[in-house]
């Protein structure tokens, strides 16, 4: 292409240093925020003011920051639930369903200990909390494992299976918490019973302790893929399935393992959101909105290119934006859905900018 005497060429890149990738993401962010500024202008709000409100609330207001961090934990876990299978070349679109089942199995433990009877039942958190977390992860893992097993054993498309399992899980939850279901709140408001006060998760500066688990997972997953034999086998299946099989990797087993891992992480996200975030402590009536939020894990995972450490800043940004956006929307009386629109636009632009990861523009005189 030639423009006013300059020639613009698109050239494929051979390598991309990490700092350049980070720079392009930052550039994408600036471009995205700039473009979305027009939306604020059309909504009769000043972009500067809107962004100031969003970022100030999300990251500098103590209340907002706590909420942002809770979201960050949730988004990071959903992203990990997506990227572990992704590295084996498999698409987990079922974080939502694994999340729902994880919530049910987690609350199932509370139910078995008699936690449904009253919010004031004294239960030992030292005994019940680990069991809850374990049960949530196990539930998510088994739900994910169905897709992994079907894929590995019979080559059934994992996208279709996980998607369908989402619907099944959705209705199972509904059946359980509404209209006389076993987990129904005695108050009968179409939601799950409330977690006993004795089982509330410990907080660190107002943030659930699950943040430690997330940071541990970040380094754990990074280590898994960089150093371990299992992580190597997963990557081999993702990048060269035939070569992996030739070398003796048990490919069906890897399919199962990545979905068990992904599902378990989604189950942990369920524990976090439904039993550890202050102010929730139950399977809420609108549990589907949090299920939908899990899908952002897919896009965060794609933006982070399947890298566990790169996921952290991405999830933090979008966790903060979702909280700050909702706040600014109320404060500036903006239309419904502006917060999600902002996240959506930024995500699309971030993914679109990955063009520059693979290609370079060269401008010279024709």
């Amino acid at each position: 292409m030639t423009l006013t005497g300059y020639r613009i060429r698109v050239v494929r890149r051979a390598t991309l240093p990490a700092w350049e990738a980070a720079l392009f993401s930052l550039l994408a962010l600036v471009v995205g925020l700039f473009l979305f500024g027009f939306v604020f202008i059309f909504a009769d709000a000043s972009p500067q003011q809107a962004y100031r409100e969003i970022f100030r609330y999300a990251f500098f207001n103590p209340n907002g920051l706590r909420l942002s961090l809770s979201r960050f934990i949730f988004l990071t876990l959903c992203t990990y639930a997506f990227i572990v299978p992704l590295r084996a070349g498999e698409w987990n679109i079922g974080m939502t369903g694994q999340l729902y089942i994880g919530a049910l199995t987690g609350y199932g433990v509370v139910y078995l200990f008699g936690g449904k009877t009253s919010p004031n039942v004294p239960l030992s958190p030292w005994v019940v909390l680990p069991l809850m977390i374990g049960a949530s992860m196990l539930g998510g893992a088994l739900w994910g494992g169905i897709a992994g097993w079907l894929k590995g054993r019979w080559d059934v498309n994992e996208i279709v299976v996980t998607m369908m399992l989402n619907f099944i899980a959705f209705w199972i939850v509904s059946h359980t918490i509404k209209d006389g279901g076993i987990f129904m709140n005695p108050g009968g408001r179409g939601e799950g019973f409330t977690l006993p006060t004795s089982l509330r998760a410990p907080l660190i500066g107002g943030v659930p302790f699950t943040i430690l688990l997330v940071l541990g997972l970040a380094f754990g997953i990074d280590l898994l893929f960089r150093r371990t034999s299992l992580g190597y086998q997963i990557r081999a299946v993702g990048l060269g399935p035939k070569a992996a099989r030739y070398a003796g990797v048990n490919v069906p087993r890897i399919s199962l393992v990545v979905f068990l891992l992904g599902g378990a992480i989604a189950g942990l996200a369920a524990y976090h959101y439904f039993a550890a975030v202050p102010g929730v402590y139950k399977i809420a009536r609108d549990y589907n909105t949090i299920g939908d939020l899990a899908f952002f894990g897919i896009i965060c995972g794609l933006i982070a290119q399947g890298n566990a450490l790169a996921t952290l800043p991405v999830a933090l940004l979008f966790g903060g934006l979702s909280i700050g956006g909702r706040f600014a929307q109320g404060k500036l009386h903006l239309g419904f859905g502006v917060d999600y629109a902002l996240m959506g636009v930024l995500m699309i632009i971030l993914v679109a900018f990955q063009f520059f990861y693979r290609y370079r523009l060269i401008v010279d005189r024709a």
Partner: protein
Amino acid sequence: MFGRRTPANDLADEFWANVQPGEVLLRAQGITKRFPGGVVANDHIDFEIRAQEVHALLGENGAGKTTLMSILFGLLQPDEGEIYLRGHPVRFSSPQDAIRYGIGMVHQHRKLVPAHTVLENILLGHPKARGVLNVREAAEEVAAIAEMYGFNLDLYARVWQLTEGEKQAVEIVKALYRGAHILIMDEPTSALTPVETDRLLEAIERMTANNLGVVPFITHKMPIIFRISDRVTILRRGRVVATLPTRDTNERELAQLLVGREVLFDIQKPPATPGDVVVEVEHVTARNDKGGLALNDVSFSLRAGQVLGVAGVAGNGQHELAEVLAGLRPVEHGRIRFLGRDITTASVLERWQLGIGYTPAERTEVGSIGDFTLVENVTLNYFWDERYVQNGLLNEKKLRALTESIIETYQVVTPSPDVKAKTLSGGNLQKVIMGRVLSRQPKLVIANLPAQGLDIGATEFVQRRLLDARAAGAAVILISEDLDEILMLSDIIAPMYEGRIVQLIPAEQADKETIGAMIAGGRTRANA
């Protein structure tokens, strides 16, 4: 001189008017191309082609032939250097540009639309086909060109129906119809039958008589150089080693220039010292991917220090035999024993662990992972080996040292063990795969088409490594479509036809004609 954007051929015709015999048509001077990662594919290459001349370019895989060809045809731009056409400096920004300047290209992997007719393929992309096309007039012109060069083409046949030689003729006629004055041909005779080769040589003769210049790029088939070319330029590692008149040289000298050292065309194989039985295959039957019978009651046994040469035309069950032995394909009936142990249903991994090493024919898809580095590719055969994995963690230091030693002993040309495998040339990749598998010191080596597509130097190298494995006491199963290779390396020969081993023949009793007949299904020698 015509401008950069020539709309049609008429200006080119003017440019190419009055070419004198022997005039320099194209001169490339100091062509240099560097690739990211430090590979200098072309290093100050000088090259010229005269009218009425066939000037062959000879080079091994990775010598820079493809890069030079891409530059001459406008697919790549050189970093340094100039191209002159009849003395005028030119720059091709795309293949279309090169075509407009009168460069024609005949690809090894044909660039034709199989479902279209010959005529449609020839007209595709021609300036005349842009507006309203007078098909009958065009057909007459094309037919005239085909006839002029002795090609007997049915213009209305579909390309998928044609033989390789006919497809090549279509590409040649297409280039000539576009007004090519210089014809670049990539491995022109590699897929041709002897009769088709003769026809091609005759066509080339007629082209040179018409003042054209022809540039064949050749890797493997050296004898053709002497039949086809007037001059030959030899490339090695991106540089021009020599340009010689063909009549003043010989095959041995060319091979030496090509590889950079003396090449022995005959590998001397020490006498066999057979040891214990390593592998026994008993009445094995297996199916191919489509469910057809691929192996039909195959039996043989092989001892340590022996090479079994499985000869055959592609698709007669050799590939499935390799996969059955490697554990990649289930056995329907029959048994396989390895060192006395029944491994008929053993997993792929168990077989690696027991000491069976397989080098597959599909090097890029099965034998390696293009997006993995060389270290990671070597890890493919070590991710389970406790010498290299402790507590589930890969020992990167040892794996890297191993990779570096493979790179050194197998003379892999690469800037570092951290480059991705997809950046390697075919021969270098095969060396990495071979080195990786043989570094395990397997007791049974299954080598599926180990030298296919490799240049002389790499072929000899790979064959020597297989004989080294034999000398070290491994049983080797060599699958090859090249009878010379089979006869040179094997102790026992197993010609295969339609899923059966026709007969097991000791190498000293084998001759090329008998085996050739057996793999063609023509003859079954009565049991001795």
